């Protein structure tokens, strides 16, 4: 081993462990710090955006909630959706019976009730799912009007499609004043389509 190579070995050791090593470590630490910084800053940017999103979303939530909570809209929706899941004919029949029970005795009599035949013009045109029910009554005008008003208030999905009122064609004078009603209602079946 000659002198120059031994000297260079000392020098090499000093250069490697005195300068290059610390420099590499310093660079690695710096890179690590930069990495941490950039990650934190990137995350901070995301969270800043998230905060703004949260603020906007909170405002929107409050607005929509106020909208839904005003005028009992949320309750209405709940009722509508609850009722839509129930058996329509049962509800209709029940509501009709309740409405008619409040009428004076003998003022109106239901003579028929069933599913309407044929297609509904408006039902077909709208394309909405629906069912039709047709009923026949006999009685006086006000009683019929009253029953319909109560029925339509109880079952908001009803829409009157057809109403025919004629006088009883009997020659009997007492029966001549009795009116014959034929009513067809459409019930929007929005249990599926409304969701």
């Amino acid at each position, binding site marked *: 081993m000659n002198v120059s190579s031994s000297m260079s*070995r000392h*020098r090499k050791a000093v250069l490697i*462990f*005195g300068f290059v090593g610390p420099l590499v470590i310093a660079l690695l630490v710096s890179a690590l710090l930069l990495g941490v910084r950039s990650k934190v800053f990137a995350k901070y940017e995301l969270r800043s955006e998230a905060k703004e999103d949260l603020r906007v979303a909170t405002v929107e939530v409050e607005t929509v909630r106020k909208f839904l909570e005003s005028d009992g809209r949320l309750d209405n929706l709940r009722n509508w959706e609850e009722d839509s899941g129930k058996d329509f004919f049962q509800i209709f029949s029940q509501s009709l019976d309740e409405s008619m029970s409040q009428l004076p005795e003998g003022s109106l009599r239901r003579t028929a009730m069933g599913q309407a035949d044929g297609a509904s013009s408006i039902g077909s045109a*709208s394309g909405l799912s629906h069912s039709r029910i047709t009923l026949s009554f006999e009685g006086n005008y006000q009683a019929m009007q009253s029953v319909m008003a109560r029925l339509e208030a109880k079952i908001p999905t009803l829409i009157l499609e057809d109403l025919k009122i004629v006088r009883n064609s009997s020659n009997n004078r007492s029966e001549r004043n009795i009116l014959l009603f034929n009513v067809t209602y459409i019930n929007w079946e929005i249990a599926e389509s409304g969701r």
Partner: protein
Amino acid sequence: MELFPIDSPLIKLHRQAGRLSRRSEGMVANRNWYKAADRQPLQWHLLVNGAELSSYIYRPSMDEWAPGPAVPRPRLEKAGDSAGGEQAHEGVGGKTRLSPESREELQKVIHELVDSIGKGEQAGLGIILHACDSLAIRKLAPQFEEEPDHDSLDQLLIEAPEVALGDKTLVEEATSWRLLSEVDSGNSGPQAISISSRYAPIVEEMREFGRSLRLPIVVEARSAALELLAWLTSPSENDASLIASHNKNGSVLVIRYPQQTISATLNQEGTLDSLRVLPKAIGAGEEAPEVERLLRNLTTLGDHSFGDVIFLDRALSREEAPDFSSLKDTYPEVSVRIFDEWQLPGVLDGSTGTLFPESAFIAAKKTEKGSSGSPFESAGALDFYCLPESVAARIPDLGTLKLARTGLYFRICSVFLVSAWAFMIGSEVLQKLRSEEWQVLPSSVDEQKMELAGLISQRNRWRSWDDLLKKRSEGAVAMALPLVLFGEGDGILLDRLNYRLNSDLVEEPRVGFVRNWDFSGYLDPERARDLSNLGSERKIESAINNLADDLQSFYLASTEQTELDVTFQQRQSAMPATTAFPIEMIRRYRAAFDLTIRQKVSPKSENSLPGASSR
């Protein structure tokens, strides 16, 4: 102070360099660590002449020589032998070291010297051992005689002289060998030259003590004869008094020491031609025959005669000066001159009478001219106890130590900068971590958005429901219209009422529709007159709007998106005869009527029906 071998791991070498570069070690600040012994500010010269030991102190800055401290005769012992020997002896057959008492005495002397120079950055002690008693010359092994790399050969002689000399009987501790490349004796190439190794333990002890004191104590062991030859062969003008009369046939120098005699031949230019060692001193009274024999040998071997014989006596007193009269008789053409130390040229003014070491002359010459200029100068400065290169290389050079020192500052700065940067970044990061924004978890946004989506879905469902369930056609309202149109008074008999809701125009996503009322019945003449304008759309529209107001059924009211079409017919037509009505009544209602009302709601109207595609 243990130094790692040069082939140690780099990390060890780095730590060692860092340790040596510390201020407390003083190696960076004090350049004397890297200077030769004869360059130190204080020099201690020890002239070893057999059993005699002379001590001198030299201060180059003042060019002042003075008697040195008395050195007790060193006692050596074999390593591991605590009992110690009787006196200094050659270390043949084992490693020797100073006895504890001698070491203590030697350290005490060095301490006193060191104390006199202090411990500053200029401190340094050079100790030069001038050996006068054990010079030997040998030829190299045949395979190395033509070796051109003298440095490698020199190292081989230092580390493995038995190899370089081809003599396995050599014991390493017995002699210390160096290469003498300046003298070419005949055609045999460079020669090996040595002094005894007996003083090596002392030198090592001095070096070790210096390292323990963290003070540059540089120790060298030189051959006094070589030093003197280097001085004598110098072409300096000051030497003229000694060898000025260079004979054209050359000169012979004979240097006599108490234990051996050195002869050297000088050529016509006065430079050294050959060197020989006689194993014993030429005693008084025997000089002439000895020198004569010597000259005869020299002239025979050198194949030329000498015109000048210079006899340097470094051992005898003036009274014991040899008698060369017989020599002069034998060689009348030869000029024989005899000098002793008292007669050496006045290089040391006022110092005559003192047996100075040979380096005193060299030092004086260097002081005057910077260098003696002799080709033999390097031989005179040969350190026979120099460390083998493999050991010397363990000490990093000054540049490396400075670099290590700079590296330390570099690392401190790096740590400071990186720490400062880390602190800065840490502060920034901490600030971000403590911010309000950081507390917002993306999951909370998602939850809020999910809640919003749920609410919006509810709102949309509500709107959808609300739109669908908007009142458009009610039986109670449909039945209320004839009551508004015809009133409840007498004079009208409604016979038939039809109401129907039909679809009309579909403009996706909305669907228009038409409300149809058909009335038919009978009127008495008075009501027939009153209701003659029933065909007026304005009247009907007004009636419908009033009804809408009264019943709060605003969907019924006319708007720009509704169209009204009214058809009214009256004709004279008696009621058919029936028993259901009295005859007076039948006679009274003589006018029949038909009223048709068509209210068309456009798909653009807000009251239009949502189509399936809108849901």
